[in-house]
């Protein structure tokens, strides 16, 4: 039983967004309550047993740069590390970790326990407390009111959650758990824009019944790229995954039973993600493909559960069994838990500020899947943003907003609050226009200093970061202090243009075909050879993108300016007769909050933007005139 009923920050929900939010508030030195239905489910991974990947790995690194939990907890529970897109250029690589589910849960629980000022409270939240237009805590069944300066809602798929296995429906936010109907009704009552989304999972398989010998294997990397900047070694033994594929028979079984699928039977009104299609979707939309890959991912070292990645489904249990058993290696397989589709409520994130605070209900923050996103990493990143801002607000300090030009977190938050969501939002590398700058290797250089200045970064990490920063500066100095003529370079085997330009070793690194070893040879002293490979590698990455980053600077500047030009909600686009009707209706439908948001809409030209800017200024000046 707990006694304090007044906290600085209260977090509702103990998923990836919730734990990250609570821990961020804790790092700011605030008393925090984390209310969850079950103490044993903190940071539980209800879908695939992996963290990171393309775009998502960037988010995890950024969370880590701000000293968040996800990366370090994941590194300690990883049973397979892989760096995706290794062959495709450093800016678009993403580290992915296969996780031991139960170790992850234990590690997460111990992180939360270690944080002295987080009180974990078990209970069901029935309502939020509103006083004078401010939200100041929540009402919990059997426990009564728990009051806080800032309240963060991270209820994931539990609001109005409905689970479908074939045509059977149960209410719940995750298999075997009840959904939160009371809170859902309350949000609807408040007039918060509520919509429906859906997502699905595959059946879980018993590892002992899989014929592993018949399958090809996918091993992890020999030299792992960890998720956290602070991790030095693996904690657990590493495993391989199995690879198999669907076949004509599988497809035939699915096609013949499509009408029994919840997704196809019309029972689900929510919109599903296009990028994570169910096997029903794949078979019907890509009918010409004779097979689809299936990755068999063990869920842990001491766990017989296997997650077959690539065949999420909402077909009835017996059909699931027969199509799964048509797959090579799975002929005798036992299904431990059937696949299911889940449909849930989300709130329109357009009603949120970039701090994730609701724009009308002050003191109330939303983070995670409830904002229409999908994925642990997206949820955790929002939890971090909401936790930091809720904490800063509780300390009466200005909020922290993240920029599109300096983090993937910023890209995601900006996308959410400016455009809202029509399908579950997932991070993609291509969503970041400045992706050459937003890399996994420099997430700390982009964010750790900000984190340290607001107080959410530990001294330990700060010292580690400061050393790295110093080494990079020193390395850059050595590589840039002397330029070489084309003749000098030719003598040692480089082929460069004879344009009278001198080139520094750093500049040479940006040329295709020039690698680190060649350049290190060129620098006469041994100093550079003594540098840590990771520092040299990062310098090479900087060099690779230097000219393009330079070119983007004016674009970054223009964006910053456009972000400061806010468009009032009642702005009358009809007045602007210079704009085409198509452009006008697009602007009216999207209600961009700033010129920067308007600029990202399809088909908007710079001339149209200028016209809007002028109109804004005209309105502003004529008001001043009258006033």
């Amino acid at each position, binding site marked *: 039983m707990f006694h304090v009923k007044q906290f600085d920050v209260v977090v509702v929900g103990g998923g990836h967004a919730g734990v990250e939010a609570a821990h961020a508030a804790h790092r700011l030195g605030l008393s925090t309550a984390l209310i969850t239905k079950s103490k044993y489910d903190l940071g539980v991974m209800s879908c695939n047993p992996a963290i990171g*990947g*393309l775009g998502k790995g960037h988010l995890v690194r950024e969370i880590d740069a701000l000293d968040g939990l996800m990366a370090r907890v994941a590194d300690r529970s990883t049973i397979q590390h892989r760096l*995706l*897109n290794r062959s*495709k*250029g*450093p*800016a*678009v690589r993403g580290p992915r970790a296969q996780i031991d589910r139960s170790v992850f849960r234990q590690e997460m629980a111990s992180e939360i326990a270690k944080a002295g000022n987080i009180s974990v409270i078990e209970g069901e939240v029935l309502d939020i407390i509103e006083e004078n237009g401010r939200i100041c805590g929540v009402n919990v069944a059997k426990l009564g009111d728990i009051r806080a300066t800032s309240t963060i809602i991270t209820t994931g798929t539990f609001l109005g959650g409905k689970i479908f296995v074939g045509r059977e429906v149960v209410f719940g936010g995750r298999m075997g758990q009840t959904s939160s109907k009371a809170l859902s009704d309350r949000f609807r009552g408040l007039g918060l824009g509520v919509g429906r989304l859906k997502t699905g999972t595959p059946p879980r398989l018993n590892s002992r019944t899989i014929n592993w010998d018949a399958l090809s294997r*996918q091993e992890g990397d020999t030299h792992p790229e960890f998720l956290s900047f602070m991790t030095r070694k693996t904690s657990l033994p590493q495993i391989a995954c199995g690879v198999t594929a669907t076949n004509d028979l599988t497809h035939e079984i699915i096609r013949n039973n499509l009408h029994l699928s919840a997704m196809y039977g019309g029972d689900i009104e929510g919109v599903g993600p*296009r*990028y*994570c*299609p169910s096997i029903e979707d*794949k078979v019907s939309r*890509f009918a010409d*493909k004779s097979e*689809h*890959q299936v*990755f068999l991912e063990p869920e842990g070292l001491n766990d017989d559960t296997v997650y077959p990645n*690539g065949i999420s489904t909402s077909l009835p249990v017996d059909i699931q069994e027969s199509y799964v058993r048509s797959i090579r290696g799975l002929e005798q397989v036992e299904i431990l838990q059937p696949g299911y589709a889940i449909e849930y409520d989300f709130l329109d994130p357009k009603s949120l500020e970039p701090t994730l605070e609701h724009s009308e209900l002050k003191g109330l923050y939303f983070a995670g899947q409830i904002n229409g996103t999908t994925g642990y990493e997206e949820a955790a990143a929002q939890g971090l943003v909401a936790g930091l801002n809720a904490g800063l607000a509780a300390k009466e300090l200005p909020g922290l907003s993240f920029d599109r030009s300096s983090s993937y977190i910023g890209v995601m938050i900006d996308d959410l609050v400016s*455009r809202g969501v029509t399908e579950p939002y997932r991070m*993609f*590398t*291509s*969503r970041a*226009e400045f*992706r*050459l700058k937003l890399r996994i290797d420099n997430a700390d250089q982009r964010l750790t200093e900000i984190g340290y200045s607001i107080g959410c970064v530990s001294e330990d990490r700060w010292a580690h970061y400061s050393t790295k920063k110093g080494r990079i500066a020193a390395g850059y100095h050595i590589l840039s202090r002397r330029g070489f003529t084309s003749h000098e370079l030719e003598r040692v085997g480089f082929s460069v243009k004879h344009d009278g330009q001198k080139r520094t070793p750093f500049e040479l690194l940006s040329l*295709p075909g020039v690698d680190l070893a060649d350049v290190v040879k060129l620098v006469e002293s041994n100093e550079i050879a003594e540098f840590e490979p990771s520092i040299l590698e990062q310098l090479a990455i900087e060099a690779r*993108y230097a000219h*393009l980053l330079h070119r983007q600077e*004016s*674009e970054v500047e223009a964006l910053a*300016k456009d972000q400061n030009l806010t468009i009032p909600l009642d702005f009358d686009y009809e007045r*602007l*007769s*210079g*704009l*085409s009707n198509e452009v006008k209706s697009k602007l009216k439908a999207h209600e961009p909050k700033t010129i920067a948001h308007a*600029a*990202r*809409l*399809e*088909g*908007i*030209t*710079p*001339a*149209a933007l*200028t*016209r809007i*800017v*002028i109109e804004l*200024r*005209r309105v502003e*000046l*004529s008001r*001043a*005139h009258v006033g």
Partner: protein
Amino acid sequence: MDTIFALSTPPGKAGVAIVRVSGPKAFDAAEKLAGGVPEPRYASLKKIRSLSGALIDEGLIIAFPKGMSFTGENVVEFQVHGSNSVVTLLQAELAKLDGFRHARNGEFTRRALENGRLDLTQVEGLADLIEAETTAQHAQAMSSFLGRFSEKAEAWRAEFVQISALLAVMIDFSDEDVPSDVIPVVIPQLANIRYEISAELDGVSVAERIRDGFEVAIVGEPNVGKSTLLNYIARREASIISDIPGTTRDVIEVRVDLRGLPITFLDTAGIRESSDPIEAMGVSRAIARAERADLRIFLVNGGESFVVERKPGDIVVGSKRDLGSDRAFAISGLSGEGVDELLSEISDILIDRVGLGGLATRTRHYNALKSCRDAIDEALRYLELGESSVDLAAEEVRSAVYALEELLGRVDVEEMLGKIFSSFCIGK
């Protein structure tokens, strides 16, 4: 912040043309092209040379320092002789300077606005002006002048969305998710756009049209006096650029320079009923040509019956004034009566229609196409290096699209992702 430049006086032949440069590096322009920055706010006569030293013109240079200029930034004004070639050469040199680019539509104004240099009256005036200009551009896009071009731009846009989507597949998904190499598909697509843009740049369309300017069709019944009028215009105007007989017998073209605007007059002599199938085909071509022209002069003598559709702004004028016409506005191609009035009416309408930015728009399009092509070249170079450089190639494609944004409008990432999900089955 880029330094921007543009012609800020009406286009065409005039006593003086002013090219304005604004931005942090504006003074570099005076330094590098006019041999030095004159004392602020004093006009100074300088020789203007290209970067390679060739003389472009002699003109007045005025430098306005930051805080004391129209935009609030460093500004340099080049007041040169009002000839198209001087202005074009000067702008070409400016474009070569580091950090310089052609101003986008309304960009000077926007900078002035942002730097708080405009009061309410000025802002209201500008709002009207820009509105008029965007409306005019819209009208232009509908006319023959840019109609074909905007169709092309639409096609490029669709192709760019496709190309961006293909490259995004490579960087958004790993090989295990989408096991296909798209580079061999992207290269020919990019090469194709590059080919078409080059064709535009090399004069097949945009550049040719910068030279050609406007088309004005003279239409009317046979023997109404079309050829007489055309001959009169051709004889009278000292500045005839050339006089090309129609490549077919359907249309005769005469190019003249009217108050600085290059105009091609079309005599659609061939428009008449015909039973000869080949001639009939020619006639329908002539009608189409006349309808596509920027402006039509309907010469009438007696009743009005138009084979060619009459559009807003078109001029109807009586012919054979020397023989007595029943119309208030009439001309005679024989005596020249009324022709001056007609010509000034034509140039008024066209100058109006093109707005202040007409020729500037075309130069801007030309420059945008050029940066686009440069970016495509870079992208192709990276793609040849294989998938290890796909991140760089994707950035160059993004930059190519950015260059064309003024013509195409923004290409949205959602549209591109939509393309991916409809064309690829993502493995996981």
